[in-house]
């Protein structure tokens, strides 16, 4: 999709490929233990929400006991940790470790989307809002450490305020509040508590915005994964409860601090390096993170085109679009239907799932040109049919298989052979189920194999889900009942699944050979010559 040029673009492409490979391998490794639906790396966004709610709920409980006085703050946290360790102490640990888990999954989520190249083009919006959320999570976490008012809090307070003072925009240096006992006011804690509560609320609003261009966002992890994560947090909280360091004492220097490296990893650098350098680096990295969707910009294919002559406003494309890029609007051509589909190119990722959902995208159409109600101009359904027919004519012998594969799944290069035809799609969901029937009924192959991304890891979110549902005849457009189940297989193996695909093809070919030969082709007048005809 992208057309990078120049050294920078090549470097980004190289980095992206490496990150993607790393995630592919990690997902594959976790796939050995987890069912696809429970794989933590395939639920990072949902896990982020899960930990956010855990942090919120535990935070509300901890807030009941928290006191905002200079000395009372520490004492109240100690009370929770020592006296009421069984509930408030566990809640405090949940709050601490849940925050750590939140920042881990949020960072991994960001990195994974980068590797998947799902941050550019129309997805810039989700990327930018995601970056803002991550920054807010950091701010909330850091202010949280401040509130305990132990040695670590003192360290965080001094380093943060010195760093902020370096901007020179505050009339009175904030760091002066932390130079000596008695310099700090109770109201300062009230202010910090306000920030600690207000920032996550703002983050929640930005998270809502973050999901605006995504249809049916998964904001809850599957129950099994949620249980695993919860029990894991509980076990950690009981085995290694979050505790405070000795109380803050501004008459002494903390000396040695046990940093939470998930939130405070930059603090030693802030302390050691000159403030102008750290500010310049921080601003540069922030600007880079915000501008990376345009470094380089993604060159997208043309968006889907709606052909009103073939659109009856059935809304299947609207229901299937994973990015809310299609809306149904009142009919504009006077045809006797209530609505027509309209595509928002700014939200569309060109996956083609809409074309796969269109009931008029059937390759059997011969009386008129094959022009579905909605179609990708750069990979139209008619071109797919041509490709299928060309591949079908090329195949010979028993055990012939037509492989439909998506561009983001198993690599298909070099797979074609005398018995294997290959047709590439943007997404498995772009394949109208009628194509399976067409291939088998026209004897273009003896079996159809649809492959793509790994299960639960569809690059276009719903391609696998909708394909399986259409084949299972639980979602329109449904696969015709006359298609024999033994002649259709799916394999969701991802980019590392080439070996699995080859094994599946070999096994499928053997199974097809064991089946009776296909029935003679029944052709309506006007159909082009099929392979059977050529054989005859």
């Amino acid at each position, binding site marked *: 999709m992208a057309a990078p040029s120049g050294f920078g673009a090549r470097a980004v492409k190289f980095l992206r490929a490496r990150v993607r490979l790393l995630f592919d391998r990690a997902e594959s490794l976790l796939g*050995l*233990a987890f069912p696809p639906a429970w794989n933590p790396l395939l639920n990072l966004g949902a896990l982020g929400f899960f930990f956010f709610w855990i942090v919120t709920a535990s935070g509300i409980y901890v807030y009941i006991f928290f006191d905002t006085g200079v000395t009372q703050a520490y004492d109240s946290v100690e009370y929770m940790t020592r006296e009421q360790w069984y509930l408030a102490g566990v809640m405090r640990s949940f709050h601490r470790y849940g925050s750590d888990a939140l920042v881990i999954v949020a960072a991994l989520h960001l990195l994974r989307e980068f590797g998947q190249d799902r941050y550019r083009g129309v997805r810039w919006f989700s990327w930018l809002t995601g970056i803002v959320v991550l920054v807010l999570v950091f701010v909330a976490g850091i202010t949280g450490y401040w509130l305990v008012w132990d040695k670590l809090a003192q360290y965080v307070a001094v380093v943060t305020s010195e760093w902020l003072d370096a901007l*020179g925009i505050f009339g009175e*240096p904030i760091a002066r509040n932390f130079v000596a006992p*008695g310099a700090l006011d109770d109201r300062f804690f009230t202010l910090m508590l306000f920030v600690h509560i207000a920032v996550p609320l703002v983050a929640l609003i930005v998270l809502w915005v973050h999901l605006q261009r995504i249809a049916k966002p998964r904001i809850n992890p599957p129950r099994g994964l949620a249980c695993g994560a919860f029990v894991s947090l509980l076990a*950690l909280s009981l085995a290694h409860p979050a505790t405070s360091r000795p109380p803050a004492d501004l008459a002494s220097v903390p000396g040695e601090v*046990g940093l939470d490296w998930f939130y405070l990893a930059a603090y030693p650098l802030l302390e050691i390096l000159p403030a102008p350098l750290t500010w310049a680096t921080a601003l540069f990295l922030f600007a880079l993170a915000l501008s990376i969707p345009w470094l380089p910009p993604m060159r997208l294919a043309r968006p889907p085109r709606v052909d009103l002559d073939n659109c009856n406003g059935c809304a299947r494309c609207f229901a299937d679009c994973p990015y809310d890029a299609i809306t149904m609007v009142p009919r504009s051509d006077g045809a006797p239907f209530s609505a027509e589909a309209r595509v928002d190119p700014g939200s569309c990722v060109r996956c083609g799932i809409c074309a796969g959902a269109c009931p008029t995208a059937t390759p059997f159409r011969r009386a008129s040109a094959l022009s579905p109600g909605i179609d990708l101009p750069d990979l139209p359904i008619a071109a797919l049919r041509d490709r299928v027919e060309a591949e079908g004519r090329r195949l010979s012998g028993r055990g012939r298989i037509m492989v439909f594969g998506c561009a983001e799944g198993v690599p298909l290069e070099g797979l074609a052979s005398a018995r294997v035809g290959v047709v590439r799609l943007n997404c498995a969901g772009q394949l109208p189920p009628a194509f399976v029937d067409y291939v088998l009924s026209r004897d273009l192959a003896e079996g159809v194999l649809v492959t793509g991304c790994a299960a639960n890891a569809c690059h276009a979110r719903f391609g696998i889900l909708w394909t399986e549902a259409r084949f299972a005849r639980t979602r329109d457009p449904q696969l015709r009942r006359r298609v024999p189940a033994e002649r259709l297989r799916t394999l969701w193996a991802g980019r590392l699944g080439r070996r699995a695909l080859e094994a599946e093809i070999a096994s499928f070919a053997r199974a097809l050979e064991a089946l009776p030969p296909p029935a003679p082709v029944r052709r309506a007048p006007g159909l082009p010559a099929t392979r059977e005809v050529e054989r005859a």
Partner: protein
Amino acid sequence: MPELARWAGQLLFYGLAALLTGFFATRPVWQQFPKDRAQITIAFVHGGERKDACTKFAAEEIARLPPRARRPSDCGRERVPLRFELALDGRLLLARTVPPSGISRDGPSRLYEKLALPAGRYAITLRLADSGRAEGFDYERRFDIELRPLQNLAIDFQPDRGGFVIR
């Protein structure tokens, strides 16, 4: 993979995730400041005197001014920079000229410095000039102190409390 092995794998993952989260939530420990040293923090905000002396207007000059701008004297806004020195056992350790803040250089001067020293006994001398004088100082304070390891000695300047304040 057998079902039991899959469950064991999940358990291993959750265990490792918890272990790593718990570990990096507090470790490795960061030695932020050497254990055998003490710190002196000089932090104060103080405005130097006006750079230019005020000019008193004669009665006829005041009369010539627009009614709303009539005042007995005219004072420049700009303040002089502060000169600060800290000497340890008679040896000059820190000397700073602190400019006034603000675009018109009419705001107070702000000084925030931290010094790390080996713990021990010291004779400290603090000096400050806020009048713009070229030589000498307007304020001076000498004192002896035993600095403990990791002690933070804060030095403030509050003219209404006589000058340097040790906290």
